[in-house]
Each structure stands twice: as structure tokens, then as C-alpha cells.
């Protein structure tokens, strides 16, 4: 079952996959951008970003734009590597059938 080994539990949710895929092609994304693209609620998105942050797959930067707080997300090197592994594993799994 070598194929299964690379499937990463941390990515096994469509919101988390979505967050990662957006961050893979963008230098960074803020909370609002992720929310709009994924169509997720605040709480939902917050819990998924927290999970990815905890695994150190994404980096979170809090800052202020004017007076409004703004949270920026970007991938870490580890996150990129793990995400690529995960996608390759998915692809292999699909091609197997």
C-alpha cells in the first residue's frame, strides 16, 4: 500500500486543499480573498487555516492596513513539498483505476 502512504491527512478536506492550491500559485492571500474564492464561512476558514498553520504548512502574518487588521497567508517550504507529494499521490491513485 505504498500509494496510500503519501496521502496526507492534513489536506484531506476540500477547504484545506483549496487554501493550499490558492497559496501555491500566489505569493500570499489574505483572509478575505480566501473566503471569497472558497465560499467558506469565517469560522470554517479560520479553523482550517489554524490546522494548516499548526502543521507548519502555511505561514500567518497579521498586520494592519490603515486601521483594519489584515491577515496574510502564505505557504511554507514544508507545506509546498507536502502538498506536491499529496497531489502526486492523488494522481497515482486515480490513474490506478
Amino acid at each position, binding site marked *: 500500500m505504498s500509494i496510500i502512504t503519501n496521502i496526507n491527512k492534513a489536506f*484531506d478536506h*476540500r477547504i484545506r*486543499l*483549496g487554501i493550499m*492550491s*490558492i497559496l*501555491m*500559485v*500566489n505569493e500570499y*492571500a489574505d483572509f478575505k*480573498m480566501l473566503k*471569497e*474564492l*472558497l465560499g467558506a464561512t469565517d469560522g470554517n476558514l479560520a479553523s482550517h487555516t489554524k490546522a494548516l498553520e499548526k502543521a507548519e504548512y502555511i505561514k500567518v502574518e497579521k498586520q494592519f492596513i490603515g486601521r483594519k487588521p489584515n491577515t496574510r497567508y502564505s505557504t511554507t517550504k514544508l507545506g509546498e513539498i507536502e502538498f506536491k507529494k499529496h*497531489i502526486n499521490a*492523488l*494522481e497515482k*491513485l*486515480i490513474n490506478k*483505476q
Partner: protein
Amino acid sequence: MESKDYLKDISEIKDLMNKSSRFISLSGISGILAGIYALIGAAIAYWLVTEYSSGILILNGKIFRLVMLDLFLIALFSVVTGIILTTRKAKKNGANIWDTSSRRLVINFLIPLVAGGIYILVILNQQKYGQTGALMLLFYGLALVNASKYSIGDIRYLGFIQIILGLICAWLPGYGFWLWVFGFGFMHIIYGTWMHFKYDVKK
């Protein structure tokens, strides 16, 4: 999870990657209109020059200033039309008109274009106007190629064509006017029509 779900995941990933990094609501019709403005503008310039200055364009003359105004109006009308039609299309698709992807597109488009524009104004001030047409085509082409990373790929090819036309124009400055007409006029119309049928009509 079933493999069907994974397949859905993969296509969703691809879609999100495209949607988040590329602005795809550019309107094809605005390209066609920009081409038509360019043709009308070119006809006016041609008429001005042949009618009033017997084919010789004198810098700082009245005709020259009128031609510059003509050029400025073509650019202005094209940009305004582009913004209006693209906004309308974005709204229809439920896309955001001013988000990270469109901002990046505009910024990367403007960097070569503004640099080129300033350069052209500088050399016009030095009374060297022989290469203006070539430079406009070249810098516009470079701007398109640079912006293409943040939009659909077809813009890249339009950029390449403008660059090639610009280089030909630099080689044969005598045909500058006609190459300009071809690049800014006909190529925009062809490209706009192509875009319209490829992306707008289907939906």
C-alpha cells in the same frame, strides 16, 4: 474517499489555482472596439498629414500637436471602453473587478507601457520621431507579454505579434504608419473577435 471524489478535488484545485492567480474577465468586444478606434484615429491622422502638411510632419507644428491629441484620444477611448466592458463582464461572471489578480495584471501591464511611453515622449522632445511607431508597437507588445502571466494565454500571442511588428517597423521606418495601423487596428480586431467567440459566446 472514492476516486471520483479525488478527481473532483483535482479539478477543483486546478480551477482555484487559475481563478486566484489569473484575471480572466477581459472583454473581447473591447478589443474589437480598440481596433476600430485605432483605425479611425489613423485615418484622421493620415488625413491631417496628407491634407495639411503635404506628407511632411513638422514637430512642434499645429498638425503635429493634433496628431498627438488624436493618439491620446485613441488611447483614452480604448482604455475607458476596456474598463467599462470588462467590469460588465466580470459582474456577469460574478468575478471581482478589483482583486489581487486584476491588480497584478494592471500593474504588470503598466510597467513596460509607462516606461515606454515616457521614453517615447523624451525622444520626441529630442526631435527624433522616426522610430515612434516602432517603439509604440514594441513597448505595447512587451506590456502584453508581461501581463499575460496574470491573464489568459492568448494575450501573450498578441504581444509577440506586436513585438515582431515593432521590430519590422524599426527596420522599415517608412512603413511605420501602415504597420501601426495593422498592429493597433487590425490585430486588435482579429484578437478581440477571437476572444469573443472563444470565451464570451459560449457562456
